[in-house]
């Protein structure tokens, strides 16, 4: 047993629902107790879908358990088939039904429904949502994709977009446009938007574009093996990755058509002088493996940030992420426990977090700016406006999204110049961050240490004694040093405090004076 409050991923049957809901003319029958329909509202509310997910639940209750839950399942299959007339039926068990062992696949198979029945094995007590999506899509491909002659023109399939995918809708549009510029038509984009009939003709494509390994890598590998279709390995997030993706597609398709880069503004925006202040901003990245790995490269190579931590919650991506993190000189954090993530963020003391909905809240609590780069996300990250993450427009979107929470150059400059001014004082905080300054990470219980002694070159203290105890035992901030610390911009103050205290501890000092502060600054200067 493991105690959890927040979970990054739902159970595997929710992943299967994401595949089913993305598709058309497919229906899923889920053997599940009353109450599991809660998952419907993820699709109707967060993604704002205008129809019910194509999922029927058997809704068994306690009184059914001794009797005929298998009968209930068959009735639900029959009703779903008769009412919705799908081209194929997906059948699976949720976590509770897994325990009662009714074998949905076997039961549905005996019914002679006249459409393909695709059974799913979803080990709910071992695996999670992304596995469920990946597995469901693999089984759909295995059951339906038929061997087929290639199309005359060069075409490809797009693999991976699902319902409830972070920006999947616009990523598909952006990449479809990009491929079209290169003279490549999309044969089938799946699962989202595809019907079982579309899946049948996937074999006609010359190659596959794998956009989201989390949801479709198994299917891509199977299609490679069974249908001889190679698939792309580059995830086109960021300008560099998009260019690399274009090269990869050229190699697979022999396309030589030029791609218009005139709408790509991100490189110039990042090169313009107002972005100089972004240099070396320390960012912490967390999310699904794919988005974190792509974002880390964009952060370092295209934005000039320093990546000070990275990790993912889906174990399936642990290996490639560890490899990339080592390249960045970091140890990857692989965990699905948000408390571990919170601790790692506190330790790294970044100036910015790129993460999920959960990291937004961690950022809010710690007063660190944050932008969202990965699911799980809430309703505001299924926007009405066009906002892909991929391709050239995606790069533009990333620049705006990541920079907005930060204080921009001119604003930061003003904060420095007028930091004692009533409007620009430190506590005002960046304008895009709710107008409040971050809470200091190191601030612990007040100890009200009176620091009467003169602590250095500053005038002696006449202000009330410091209310903030040092995080390190036995190290006391003299009040003038405390005041000097306050003059340091708030977004680096937490780091300055920690560094100074670590420095003092190391030197065996019990008091921090203004001089100690600046000695520490010199010590840590890079």
């Amino acid at each position, binding site marked *: *047993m*493991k*105690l*959890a*409050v*927040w*979970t990054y*991923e*739902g*159970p595997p*049957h*929710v992943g299967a629902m994401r595949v089913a809901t993305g598709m058309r003319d497919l229906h899923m029958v889920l053997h599940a*107790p*009353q*109450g*599991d*329909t*809660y*998952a*419907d*509202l*993820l699709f*109707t*509310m967060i993604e*704002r*879908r*205008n*129809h*019910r*997910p194509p999922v*029927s*639940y*058997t*809704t*068994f*209750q*306690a009184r*059914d*358990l001794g009797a005929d839950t298998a009968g209930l399942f068959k009735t*639900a299959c029959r*009703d779903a088939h008769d*009412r919705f007339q799908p081209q194929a039926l997906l059948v699976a068990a*949720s*976590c*509770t039904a897994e*325990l*009662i062992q009714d074998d949905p696949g076997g039961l549905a198979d005996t019914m002679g429904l006249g459409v393909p029945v695709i059974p799913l094995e979803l*080990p*709910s*007590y*071992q695996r*999670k949502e992304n596995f469920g999506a990946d597995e469901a899509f693999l089984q759909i491909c295995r059951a339906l994709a038929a061997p087929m002659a290639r199309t005359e023109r060069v075409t490809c399939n797009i693999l991976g977009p699902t319902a409830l995918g972070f920006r999947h809708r616009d990523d598909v549009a952006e990449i479809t446009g990009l491929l079209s510029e290169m003279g490549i038509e999309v044969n089938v984009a799946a699962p989202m938007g595809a019907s079982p009939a579309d899946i049948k003709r996937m074999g006609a494509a010359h190659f596959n574009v794998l956009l989201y390994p989390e949801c479709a890598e198994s299917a891509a590998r199977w299609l490679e093996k069974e249908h001889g279709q190679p698939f792309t390995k580059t995830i086109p997030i960021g300008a560099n990755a998009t260019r690399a993706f274009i090269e990869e597609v050229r190699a697979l398709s022999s396309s030589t058509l030029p791609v218009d880069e005139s709408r790509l503004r991100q490189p110039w925006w990042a090169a313009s002088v107002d972005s100089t202040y972004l240099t070396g901003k320390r960012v912490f990245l967390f999310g699904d493996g794919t988005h974190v790995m792509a974002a880390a490269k964009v952060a370092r190579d295209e934005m000039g940030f320093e990546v000070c931590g990275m990790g993912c919650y889906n174990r399936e991506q642990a290996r490639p992420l560890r490899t990339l993190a080592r390249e960045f000189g970091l140890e990857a954090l692989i965990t699905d426990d948000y408390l571990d993530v919170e601790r790692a963020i506190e330790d790294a003391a970044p100036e910015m977090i790129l993460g999920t909905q*959960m990291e937004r*809240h961690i950022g809010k*609590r710690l007063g660190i700016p944050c932008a969202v780069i990965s699911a799980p996300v809430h309703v505001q990250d299924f926007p009405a406006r066009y906002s892909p993450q991929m391709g050239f427009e995606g790069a533009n979107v990333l620049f705006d999204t990541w920079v907005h929470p930060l204080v921009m150059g001119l604003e930061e400059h003003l904060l420095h110049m007028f930091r004692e001014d009533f409007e620009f004082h430190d506590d005002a905080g960046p304008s895009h961050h709710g107008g409040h300054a971050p809470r200091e990470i190191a601030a612990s219980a007040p100890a009200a240490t009176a620091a009467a002694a003169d602590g250095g070159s500053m005038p002696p203290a006449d202000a009330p004694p410091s209310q903030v105890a040092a995080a390190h035992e036995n190290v006391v901030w003299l009040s003038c040093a405390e005041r000097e610390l306050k003059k340091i911009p708030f977004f680096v103050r937490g780091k300055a405090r920690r560094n100074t205290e670590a420095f003092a501890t190391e030197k065996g000092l019990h008091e921090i004076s203004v001089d100690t502060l600046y000695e520490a600054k010199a010590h840590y200067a890079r």
Partner: protein
Amino acid sequence: MNAPLNTGCRDVPVLRERGQREVFCGLTGIIWLHRKMQDAFFLVVGSRTCAHLLQSAAGVMIFAEPRFGTAILEEKDLAGMADANAELDREVARLLARRPDIKQLFLVGSCPSEVIKLDLSRAAERLSAQHGPNVRVLNYSGSGIETTFTEGEDACLAALVPSLPETQARELLLVGALPDVVEDQALDLLAQIGIVPVRCLPARRAEDMPAIGPNTVYAVTQPFAGETHAALQRRGAKRIAAPFPFGAEGSTLWLKAVAAEFGIAPEKVDQVVAAPRARAEKAIAAAATTLRGKRIFFMPDSQLELPLARFLTRECGMEAIEISTPYLHADLHGPELDLIAKGPVISEGQDVDLQLDRVRATRPDLTVCGLGLANPLEAEGLATKWAIELVFTPVHFYEQAGDLAALFARPLRRRELLARQHPNRLEAAE
């Protein structure tokens, strides 16, 4: 005063349906119960699905150090029973060490824990012995196979009843978790009428939990308290039958029934409630201009459907087409049925596709339903009011009566305001 009508719905045959149910399970009750019981922690023993449900239902509350969590069963817990109990003990010990402010711990059963027959009542006894007297450990089922949505609160309160101390005092007990602001208003009105002391179940803190005995009389404020009602009867307490305190009329009838039990004349109640009642009627009238003559369809969700339909038809001039409840408790809902004029279909349970066929066939002006159905119905051109809000928002008694009516008026007003650009304007106009 409106006396119960002879033309009520108590004897109308109830349409009982079984099939796919688009409802929450009882675990959802934890979301508001843990706000009410300030020193209680709710530990669900369940699967990742249970944790995901709580997360989806709790929304942003999940980020505020809530006093609930899920002990997620893993593969190894399913292998052998003894192991699962040891695991549970370890997780509970860790939890209580981290949260010394916790005085009551509820082990909440889920579908998976019940199917593997993990005995949480024995676990609760064992853990009570280990962690008592500081922490009292209780258990109840919030599973989907046993409970629907608000029945989770009922199961929790019913689990509390046997553990409450014995008393011989003749005291009034209010049953049902109400928002603090509403509870305070109710206690104030009762005090003005001359009824003190009044106890509440649940109390806000463990040390204030009421005592029960043969002289206890209780009034139920939430229509889903069926099991709690039965548990209180078993301890000899006596229920005051009344409609539920929604709207000006419902609140007045409820107070008069309670007053009568204590030998206080209805005139005294009228005198005390004159001002709040006038305020409530004025506030209701404002919303009723939008609601009058509109046809409403209730899909089953919380068991609040019957009292709300009574309020909307009698005080706001709406017409009910179908009033559906997950469970119809004849004893508790009888007074409501008496007040509802004949006409609507009264249904219990659900077969969601069949019920949606009826919604589409009758095209109500407003459909009360869950969030899984609301947007799909809106897209079909039907106005909806999502039901969960009615459980989270303060809606009982006089001061909230206007807000309650407004919850139903707002979607209709919005529809009018957006009429020009609504994507389904033509369909909706038919």
